[in-house]
């Protein structure tokens, strides 16, 4: 039993020793902050629904390294974004630019909302217009007599 425990413990320790260390943080905290902020706006192309900052995919790791090196070399955020878009396309941006191919993406939901609101507006207006016509005098008298009759019964 004790041997088994020792073996288990050994395995657990070996596992943690083998675990990959996180990429060493850049000593400059301001630069690190800029890098992380930029990475949070970039999509990891391997996992697609994660940002580069969140992802531990190999490619995301490489791009993190690349971004830090470029920042250190004095490139600004826009230049780095341009560098990545030139290679991977607008798809890397979580905040895609407004242009001909992205018009539907940017304005489609609003167009849909407007369309539905307009439809609702016309539907309600038509329903109001089609509301029950006013009663004729004869009907009115009949209603009144029925109501009176029920009152008398009580």
């Amino acid at each position, binding site marked *: 039993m004790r041997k088994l425990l020792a073996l288990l413990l050994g395995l657990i320790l070996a596992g943690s020793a083998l675990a990959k260390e996180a990429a060493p943080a850049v000593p400059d905290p301001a630069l690190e902050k800029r890098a992380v902020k930029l990475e949070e706006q970039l999509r990891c192309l391997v996992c697609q629904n994660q940002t580069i900052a969140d992802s531990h995919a190999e490619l995301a790791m490489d*791009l993190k390294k690349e971004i830090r090196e470029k920042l250190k070399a004095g490139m600004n955020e826009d230049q780095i974004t341009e560098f990545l878009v030139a*290679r991977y396309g607008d798809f890397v941006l979580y905040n895609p630019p407004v242009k001909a191919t992205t018009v539907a993406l940017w304005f489609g939901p609003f167009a849909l909302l407007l369309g539905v609101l307009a439809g609702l507006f016309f539907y309600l207006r038509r329903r109001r217009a089609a509301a029950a016509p006013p009663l004729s005098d004869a009907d009115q008298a009949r209603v009144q007599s029925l109501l009176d009759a029920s009152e008398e019964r009580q």
Partner: protein
Amino acid sequence: MLRARFLIPAVVFAALVALLAIGLTLDPREVPSPLINKPAPAFNLPQLDRPENTISQKDMLGKVWMLNVWASWCVSCREEHATVLALARTGVLPVIGLNYKDERADGLAWLARLGNPYQTSAFDHDGRVGIDYGVYGVPETYIIDKAGVIRYKRIGAVTPEVVRDKILPLVKELNGNA
């Protein structure tokens, strides 16, 4: 009139099904590459099999050629390997490999075991050239024309259909125009 109104939900449902069905046939991994019709990014890397020699995209100027990104750890590369081998054997165009984020020994062993379709492979150990080529899902394949411009990119395994319908007609066209 009344019957027509009851049909509205059915029509909306059918439209939704059609929309989602189209969505299912699309591959979200296929991101259009901005590199099409751009000059192939420059590289100068040691060759996998001859570390003392280098290979550069410039060496291939004047030829229509194929750059195939592969790695020994990549499962789909195995899948496409027979197709790439067959294509290389026809001699239609030279095939250069880009051995991406691999170990030299592993890469060489992989080629020795499965056959080597490549004139040579550039050894991109740290994946820097891969980043320049916008590689994110190995295998990837580029067709580059005589002027060194990327004309076609395939993300994922090359299949016999891709060779027949895309690569061969394009190579023919590119060779004919010059």
